[in-house]
């Protein structure tokens, strides 16, 4: 029997505390201060605070943990704690709430009102962080989370830089401070590059965490496990066996009071440029040689670089836009986009975008990849479906009607559902019981929610923990963001130059404009009916 070798090099922690060995505390988070800009906002109340509290309940936060909320709203620490307590109970019903546990957690919550447009504001944040740092021994380790409108990203980073809270670290130095930036990262290619240039003036790339919460979802992470831990799928994961791939992100909701933001963003910037492109890369990437952050992100960027550039003369045949009209969703009549609050009555903002892409590499050449994202669709669902080619000969083709069924295509379909129910299903043919050979297509389903009894952590929990631990694997790297904008830029420019003539062009509660179906029909394909 082989004896397990003791580690030859003791870590610094082990050297100072030999009791730590064998307790799986290798990735324990060091004491730090986590500052949230926009702490009074919706994102913090709904997502960030519940995620941080969940980490606390799991014992994943260090003893010396400080959460400092800041925004223009004036309130004191107690007011902030009360507000956060109410938000937690309202927005995180899946978390067990016990007053005692909350009271213990709340001792690490603090609030500093500050105007992020003024030097004094940043100076006051710095003073407060220094005080708290001394008390909680955070050692100057800071994470700044920008839960603010994108227009404030640079002013905040610049302000932090001017008071010395943000500074450039060498590549081989531990990345403190870290700055977490919410999407959208830029408004188009040039604004994204400009923002990147500014940020890289005061920080290095390994200090920047561009969050895309899709990447924190269990099923998204499972894409890699599914592909690279099962030997049966990878050999057929290519143009020889796959006919087409569809990535759908559909929401039944409209702009839900975010009309002003959405007027500037639209579906392409809000969903496609970030979430769907990340999903696309995960599905199409080559197996990385290791699971470290840079190797994985290197493979993802290769996919985007291999995307066949959009032919400027054929944009309308590979990109479709839409805006929803009045219609019915879940039995309720809902207004047209142009009738939503804070939306211009003649707005041309797109609420639906569909694209046909091709990846020009050995593995994927010739396989169309269809992306679609829309608001006020018939159903809320995000999924990736891999459509395999039909069998080479149609042995059961004499079964009348089977091959012609318009919405029941031949061929296996593998579906990775991201939301609302995370899971995987495989459509396959089987013989119907009985005296004749009759084929019936069935689904074999795996649902995360029912397969594993444990609570599934939220995407923000995973991503925030990764950031605290200094693991940027699930964050978007600068070159990925740039490549994504670069690919989509011709579409953005084309749509900006040519106003839509038929908006609104799809009914709320439908699956988008007819042109989207027509785009797939060119290749004899059609969107999966969901």
């Amino acid at each position, binding site marked *: 029997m082989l004896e397990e070798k003791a580690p030859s090099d003791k870590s610094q922690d082990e050297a100072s505390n030999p009791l730590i060995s064998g307790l799986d505390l290798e990735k324990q988070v060091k004491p730090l201060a986590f500052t949230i800009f926009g702490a009074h906002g919706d994102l913090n109340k709904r997502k960030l605070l519940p995620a941080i509290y969940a980490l606390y309940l799991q014992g994943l936060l260090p003893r010396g943990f400080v959460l400092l909320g800041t925004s223009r709203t004036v309130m004191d620490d107690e007011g902030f704690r009360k507000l956060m307590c109410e938000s937690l109970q309202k927005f995180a019903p899946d978390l067990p709430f016990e007053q005692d546990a909350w009271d213990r957690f709340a001792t690490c919550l603090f609030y500093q009102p500050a105007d992020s447009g003024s030097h004094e504001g940043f100076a006051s944040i710095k003073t407060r962080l220094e005080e708290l740092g001394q008390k909680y021994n955070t050692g100057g380790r800071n994470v700044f989370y920008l839960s603010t409108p994108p227009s404030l990203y640079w002013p905040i980073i610049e302000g932090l830089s001017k008071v010395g809270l943000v500074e450039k670290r060498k590549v081989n130095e531990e990345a403190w401070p870290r700055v977490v930036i919410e999407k959208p990262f830029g408004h188009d290619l040039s604004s994204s590059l400009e923002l990147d240039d500014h940020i890289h003036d005061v920080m290095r790339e390994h200090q920047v965490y561009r969050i895309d919460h899709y990447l924190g979802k269990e099923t998204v992470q499972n894409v890699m496990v599914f592909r690279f831990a099962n030997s049966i799928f990878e050999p057929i994961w290519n143009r020889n066996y796959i006919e087409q791939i569809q990535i759908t992100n559909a929401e*039944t909701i409209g702009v839900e009071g975010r009309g002003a933001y959405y007027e500037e963003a639209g579906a392409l910037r809000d969903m496609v440029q970030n979430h769907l492109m990340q999903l696309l890369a995960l599905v199409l990437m080559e197996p990385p040689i290791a699971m470290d952050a840079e190797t994985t992100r290197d493979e993802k960027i290769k996919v985007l670089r291999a995307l066949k550039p959009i032919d400027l003369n054929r944009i309308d045949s590979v990109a479709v836009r839409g805006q929803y009209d009045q*219609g*019915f*969703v*879940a*039995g*309720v*009549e809902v207004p047209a986009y142009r009738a939503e609050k804070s939306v211009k009555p003649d707005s041309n903002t797109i609420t639906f975008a569909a694209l046909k892409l091709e990846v020009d590499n050995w593995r994927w050449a010739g396989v169309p990849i269809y992306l679609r994202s829309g608001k006020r669709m*018939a*159903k809320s669902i995000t999924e990736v479906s891999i459509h395999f080619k039909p069998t080479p000969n149609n042995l059961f083709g004499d*079964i*009348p*009607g*089977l091959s*012609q*069924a*318009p*919405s*029941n295509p031949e061929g296996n*379909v593998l*579906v990775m559902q991201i939301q*609302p*129910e995370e899971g995987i*299903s495989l*459509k396959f043919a089987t013989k*119907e019981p*009985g005296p004749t050979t*009759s084929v*019936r*297509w*069935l*689904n074999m389903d795996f*649902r995360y*929610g*029912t397969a594993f*009894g444990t609570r599934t952590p939220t995407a923000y929990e995973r991503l925030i923990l990764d950031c605290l631990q200094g693991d940027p694997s699930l964050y978007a790297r600068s070159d990925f963001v740039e490549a994504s904008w670069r690919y989509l830029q011709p579409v953005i420019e084309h749509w900006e130059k040519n106003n839509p003539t038929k908006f609104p062009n799809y009914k709320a*509660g439908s699956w988008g404009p007819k042109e989207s179906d027509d785009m797939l029909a060119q290749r004899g394909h059609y969107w*999966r*009916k*969901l």
Partner: protein
Amino acid sequence: MANIPDVKDLESSRTMSFLTGNKSAVDVAKIEKELASLWKSARDGEETGDLPISDHVVRACVLNFCILIRDGRSGDQQRVEAMNDLLTGLSLRHPARVILGLVNEADDDSGETYKDLEEKVDAWVSARCHLLPGAKDKQVCCEQITVETTYKHGVGESLASVINPLIVPDLPAFLYLSGFHLDAALIKPFLGYFQRVVFELADNLEDDLDLAIAQTTSCVPAIFALSGEHYVHDLSWSLIKPYRMALAQTFDDDDVAIDPAMLQEITDIELVTSDIAQGALYLAWLADRLNLSPLSTMIDKAKSAYEITMAGDRQIKARIVYSAVEQGKGIKSVRLRFAPDQDQGQNQDAGLLVEAESRVIKSCYKGTTEYLELPMDDPRESAIDQILTSKKTDPFYLRALGIMAAFNKKEKKQ
């Protein structure tokens, strides 16, 4: 102080109620979520032993079966109850996601108008569980979602916006219109989502012979239009299959008395039916198989009979006699008479008589009787059973339909 039930107990009792087929009210916008939660709770209960259910519960679904029904208020409650009975048997053989769409209509008899009806959509979920035959410790369960709404302007779109997203992708989706006209605006919003449409022609026709034949004028084009992009399944057609088989076998069996050549000697067809749609379809099928086309039609109101002269390479007189009965609607008998030199003169009772009796169809000819056993199940259940396994629109149905439409096009003689 009153005892407050434990949350876990409440959850268990709700799950148990769901599994035993009771309807559990759910938020219309969260039907899938509620279903997932109930199934999860059932599975957890099974593991912990909190629920007194079988050890092996299999949640199964091989197809989507949506039934749209006009609900209760106008005396159609029977239809809802009949459908529930029917689903009990069907869900065992075809584990399906059943979606029951109930459309409340104003009760004209009590002076109620559409404006009196509250405009709302409600939803419930329930499970249908069966012990698997031969495996006493295994249950197969499928789910039923009931959605109820009011018949108002835009009801089709509203109801479809709830029902369509509930379809399980990749599985066949059947839309069964129970009591709705095919050309009703109500069904249009559903058609993009369902590949197969099931209906009963009889629902589209009045119980008046002349009127019913006239109504085929509008009905048949609607069915043809529908069959362009959907598989159509007419229950009226499926229900006459045993009669078609009985007649076909009478001319086909080796030991039967009638030579197939006698088909060329038919001079007269008389069909007694309490279901005009079935009668007309049967006659149209026979005409198609014998290469006959309608020449002229005549209504004999006194005798509730519709006479059709048909011609191909010979002329044949056909007669549909309507016989209203309360129960067991369908074809009662078919009599074929043959040319005198082949037959037994002009005797009224001469020829071949195909007649339904309890669970059997008798074919009587020259003192010989043949029997075709009917399925043990309810005929309607058997018909739907066959439809759910069929792969396409029956081309013979479309041919019969084309001829049936011509029954009304020809010049009428009074």
